[in-house]
C-alpha cells in the first residue's frame, strides 16, 4: 500500500494543492533547517536536553495563557506566547541558579526544574475545568493546522538564527573547541555565550508551536549525532535535517501516521541503523585481525 501511494504522483500533486498541506510542507522544511543549523552546537555542547527542558518549562505558561485568554477575552495566540515566554525564561533562570547554588550537574538541575514545572501545569489543567488542553498536540504538534503566519514566523527565526551562526562561524568554532583559549584569543565568546540560550529558546518556542516539543528535541539531537560536525555550521547536518523532516512528512502522509512522531521515528531508526552498522564493522575488523 505504501508503494502504491508513493508511486501515485497525481495523488501527491492534488494533495499539495491543498493549502494546509503546502503550509505543512514548508513549515516542516523550515523547522528541519532551523534544527539542522543549531544541531552541531547543541550536540557538541552536550545540551541535547535543552529542547526537552524548554518544552516542559513553557507548559504551565501555556496553561496560564489558555486560562487568561478565556477569562479576560484576550487573543489566544498572544496570551500563549507571553505565558510560554515567561515560564520558559523563569524556568531557564531557575535551572542555572539551582546548578550554581546546589552545585548540581546541569542535566540534573534541568530535569528537576522541568518535571516540577510540567507537574504544575498538569495540576493546573486538572483544576481549571472548562479549559481543554490537548497534551498530545503539545508534545507532537499539529503541523496540519498551521497558518501562513506560523510559516512566516518560522522563516524569520530561521533567517536570524542562521545569520548569527554563519557570520560568527569562526567564533562559534573556537568557543566549541575550547572556550578559554577562544576568550584569550579575542574570539567573541561573551557575545556567543549570551546569544546561545536566546537563539535556542527562540528556535524551540517557534518550533514547538509547529511540530511539538518532542520533534524539536529529536531534530536538534539527530543530525549532529549521525554526522559528527567539523564546524558549528555544518552543511551536511543541515541538508540531512531537512531531508529527514521531508521524508518523515511524506511517510506520515502516505501511511496516515501523525507527522511529528513519524519524523522522530525515522530519525531514531537511522541512529539505530548507524550504531548497528558500526558495531558490525568493528566486529568484522576484530575477526579479520
Amino acid at each position: 500500500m505504501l508503494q502504491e501511494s508513493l508511486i501515485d504522483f497525481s495523488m501527491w500533486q492534488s494533495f499539495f494543492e491543498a493549502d494546509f498541506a503546502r503550509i505543512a510542507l514548508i513549515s516542516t522544511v523550515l523547522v528541519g533547517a532551523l534544527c539542522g543549523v543549531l544541531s552541531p552546537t547543541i550536540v557538541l555542547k552536550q545540551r541535547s536536553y535543552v529542547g526537552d527542558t524548554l518544552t516542559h518549562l513553557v507548559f504551565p505558561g501555556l496553561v496560564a495563557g489558555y486560562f487568561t485568554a478565556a477569562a479576560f477575552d484576550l487573543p489566544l495566540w498572544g496570551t500563549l506566547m507571553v505565558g510560554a515566554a515567561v515560564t520558559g525564561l523563569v524556568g531557564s533562570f531557575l535551572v542555572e541558579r539551582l546548578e550554581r547554588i546546589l552545585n548540581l550537574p546541569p542535566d540534573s538541575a534541568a530535569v528537576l526544574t522541568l518535571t516540577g514545572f510540567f507537574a504544575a501545569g498538569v495540576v493546573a489543567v486538572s483544576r481549571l475545568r472548562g479549559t481543554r488542553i490537548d497534551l498530545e498536540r503539545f508534545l507532537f504538534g499539529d503541523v496540519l493546522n498551521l497558518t501562513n503566519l506560523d510559516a512566516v514566523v518560522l522563516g524569520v527565526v530561521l533567517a536570524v538564527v542562521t545569520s548569527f551562526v554563519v557570520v560568527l562561524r569562526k567564533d562559534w568554532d573556537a568557543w566549541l573547541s575550547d572556550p578559554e583559549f577562544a576568550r584569550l584569543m579575542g574570539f567573541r565568546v561573551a557575545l556567543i555565550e549570551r546569544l546561545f540560550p536566546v537563539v535556542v529558546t527562540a528556535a524551540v518556542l517557534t518550533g514547538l508551536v509547529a511540530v511539538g516539543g518532542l520533534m524539536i528535541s529529536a531534530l536538534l539531537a539527530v543530525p549532529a549525532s549521525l554526522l559528527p560536525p567539523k564546524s558549528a555550521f555544518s552543511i551536511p547536518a543541515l541538508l540531512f535535517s531537512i531531508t529527514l523532516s521531508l521524508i518523515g512528512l511524506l511517510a506520515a502522509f502516505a501511511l496516515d501516521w501523525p507527522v511529528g512522531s513519524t519524523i522522530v521515528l525515522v530519525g531514531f531508526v537511522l541512529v539505530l541503523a548507524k550504531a548497528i552498522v558500526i558495531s558490525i564493522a568493528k566486529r568484522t575488523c576484530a575477526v579479520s585481525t
Partner: protein
Amino acid sequence: MSLVWENLVVGHANRPALNRPFSGRLDDGGIYAIIGPNGCGKSTLLKTWLGLLSAKSGLVAVNGNEPASSQLPLAYVPQSQQVNKFFQISVQDFVMQGFGRNPPPRDIALQRVRSALVQWELSADAQKSFHLLSGGQKTRAMVARAILANPKMIFLDEPLANLDTCCQEQLMDTLHILAHRNNICVVMVDHHFEAYEKFLSARFLFERSHNEEICSIRYEPKDDTCCKSH
C-alpha cells in the same frame, strides 16, 4: 611586555583561597617553571595570570592592563582534555585558531599553518580530526596553535606529561629558542622538569607545611635573571 601582580591570592569562586598573598613581576625572556604538589593551585595561578579566572584578592596587570582585555599577545597551551572531545575539528582548522579573530589573508594563513604543521611533524594529519591524534600529537598541535601568532608570553599547562622524551626535548629546545632569541616569557606548570633544569630561568615553588592547607609561593631564581620578585 610585563606581567605584574601584587598581593595576589588565587582560587575558584565559592572555594577557599589557595595561597598566601604574593607579589612579583615577569618581564623578560626566559622559561619560568611553576612547581608544586597536585591540587595546590598551579593551574589556577596560570589562569589567573591569563585573566581567565578572577583573583580572590590582589591585582594582576599585563602591560598595565587587565589581562582579560584580549588583543594582548598572550598564548596559552591548556591541558588537552580541555578541548571538546565531541568536536571533529580538523588539525589544520584547530591550529588556524591561533591567529585569533583577525587572521592574515587565507593563502598566507594557510601557508603559515602548514609550515607550523611540518615543524611539529603533523603535516600528514592536517585533515584528520584533532581527537584522533595521540596525546603527544595533541600537545604538539596545541603548541603549534599557541605560537602561530608570535606571542610575547606563553603559558603552558603540563605540556610535558603526554610527550615522549624525544618530543619533550624538541619542545624544551623550541621554548628555549623562543625565550632567548625572541625574548619571550615562557611560563610552564609541570611535574617533569628533572631533565630540563638547565633550561629554567627561575622557579615558582608552591610549598605547604604538614599542618597547613594553604600554600606559600616562593620565587627561586636560578642565577642572574631578569625576573624579580619581592
